[in-house]
């Protein structure tokens, strides 16, 4: 983090110099128009993501960094529908499309059309594999592994784990689970005794955990994917079982529950997920590409971690019922780009 801070300062100074002196590298983007193509809006994470976009986009338009930052969401979460949406954006003459894709491969054709028409495409969260697009990805496998590493520090003697998975068939679910299993292979004192799909929703996780619990031996820890920790805790409570160490996923209700448990019995855990604000990072990356900055095609964004020490601070900053968030600035984007070079 320290190094990236230094780079960040260096990069922002460079940019200031660039804008004042116009050193020939970065061009003015005040006339450029950026669109967000989003495939789904039906959960709190996506809502927070859209809000981050709106905040950063309207500020950027007001400051004259770009001339438009419009957000479009498809209604049915279908790749075909989103492909049509991208084609419309090309016709509307957007200079860049920031994309959270319904499928990593099914949109490649439309993305290629956009590239051929001279439109910059930056995908994030739900990334696309088309080589002409930029990708801002999270190392989900590392996130899964970190959960088990954390459990190993808190529960050195090991024990039985319950794994809550996400939505079956989705890339992110496979990646996080892969990381978790790598972690378990490394820390052989742990054993995954059960696995259910929670679909990243508290009520689904609650239901499926309640269904599998009667057949499980004592569970010391639960590894999750985010949006499922509170429901899991409720299911353990309803079954009259002791609450295991549940790794959480930054949702406000999860953190509020954590703070409650901590105050009552000193509960300690870790919470981690991607910040919905990654949309704002993608916005600035697109702006940098339009400005002529050389940006590597694959960028990695760190996940947002909440620890025992930062819990109160993060909880206070998160709106009730929402997700812990950070909004990325131009400087953050430049730091991420510099890191990838």
């Amino acid at each position: 983090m320290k190094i990236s801070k230094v780079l960040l300062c260096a990069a922002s100074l460079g940019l200031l110099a660039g804008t004042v002196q116009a050193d020939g590298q970065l061009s003015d983007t005040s006339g450029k128009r950026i669109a967000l193509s989003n495939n789904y809006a039906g959960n709190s994470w996506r809502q927070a993501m859209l809000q981050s976009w709106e905040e950063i986009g309207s500020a950027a338009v007001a400051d004259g960094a770009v001339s438009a930052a419009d957000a479009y969401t498809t209604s049915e979460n279908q790749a075909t529908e989103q492909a049509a949406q991208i084609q419309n954006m090309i016709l509307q003459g957007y200079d860049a499309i920031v994309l959270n894709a319904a499928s990593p491969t099914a949109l490649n054709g439309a993305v290629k059309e956009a590239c051929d028409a001279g439109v910059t495409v930056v995908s994030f969260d739900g990334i696309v594999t088309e080589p002409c697009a930029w990708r801002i990805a999270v190392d989900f496998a590392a996130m899964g592994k970190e959960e088990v590493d954390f459990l190993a520090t808190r529960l050195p003697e090991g024990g039985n784990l319950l794994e809550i998975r996400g939505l079956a068939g989705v890339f992110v679910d496979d990646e996080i689970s892969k990381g978790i299993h790598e972690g378990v292979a490394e820390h052989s004192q742990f054993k995954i005794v059960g696995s259910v799909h929670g679909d990243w929703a508290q009520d689904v996780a609650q239901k499926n955990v309640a269904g599998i619990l009667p057949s499980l031996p004592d569970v010391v820890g639960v590894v999750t994917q985010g949006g499922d920790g509170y429901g899991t805790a409720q299911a353990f409570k309803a079954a009259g079982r002791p609450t295991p160490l549940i790794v959480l996923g930054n949702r406000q209700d999860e953190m509020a529950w954590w703070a409650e448990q901590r105050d009552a019995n000193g509960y300690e855990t870790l919470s981690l997920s991607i910040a919905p604000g990654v949309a704002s990072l993608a916005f600035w990356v697109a702006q940098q590409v339009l400005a002529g900055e050389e940006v590597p095609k694959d960028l990695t964004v760190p996940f947002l971690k909440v620890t025992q020490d930062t819990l109160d601070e993060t909880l206070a900053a998160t709106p009730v019922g929402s997700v812990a968030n950070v909004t990325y600035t131009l400087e953050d984007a430049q730091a991420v780009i510099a890191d990838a070079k």
Partner: protein
Amino acid sequence: MNPLSKPWIWSWGAAAIVFFLTLALTSGRGAGELAYAALSFGAFAAIVGLGQMLVITLGPGNVDLSIPASMTLSATLALKVMGSEPGTAFFGLFVALAVGFGTGLANYALIFLLRLPPIIATLAASLIYQSIAIWSNRGLRIKPPPELADFATGRMFGVPNVAWVGIALAVAVWIVLEKSAWGRWLLASGQNLRAARLAGVPVESVRAATYISVATFAGLAGYLLASFSGGAALNMGAEYLLASIAVVVIGGSSIAGGNSNVPGVWGAALFMFLVVSMLNSYGAGAGVRNVLTGIIIIGIVIAASTKRVRL
């Protein structure tokens, strides 16, 4: 009379078999826990399933695909007006039921006034309801008032409160269907709409009441589910679209309409929960689980419907 000729026997039998197969794994440990969980979560599927059963009974082409959106919208608005304040539970319930009533009325208006097929009308309307839910609260999860949360997760005589609500509703629906003129009208309309109309059944009123009932049930289910799981989420209804139709079919009601089966809906709701629990307990992966669930459902539907032919 041969007990196997009752179509609802099959869903209850399947639920019992799956229950004991799960317990075989644990050598009998956790039986009470599993039954309690099945009653809790089965109640939500049963409530929306009862509504869907009434609509499907109306005859071919009748189905309500807006159940998930009605659940989400009712729950979102109810939890928003309650705002976690103690003493607002009944007001919240009223709002949830009123929103459900409203969505049902809107669905029927689209079907009747615009002559849209119910599948199209309810699917299109559900996009509107879902958008209103998103717009009204931006997906924020508001906690239910404490006494409501206690009620939704609590129990009475060892049975979950939500299951009591589901059972009471099932009894009420059964009485209406079997003992009231309205129930007879509904069955007559489902068996032959034209014949029913000629016989003097107020067919359109029956259809209107049915579409309003299903949406009101969805509102109730959404209210209870949100109170049970600690808040309304925008995607909370998603799995109840298929579940509501599956419990009707597995429960032995005729998909062609004109024949409904109340006890079967509850048996099927328990079965749907237990089969997923069993496959999870045996460690089946998501793919295997979905395939097996599909095969088992098809098997039960075939078993239940062939027996009915022999009746």
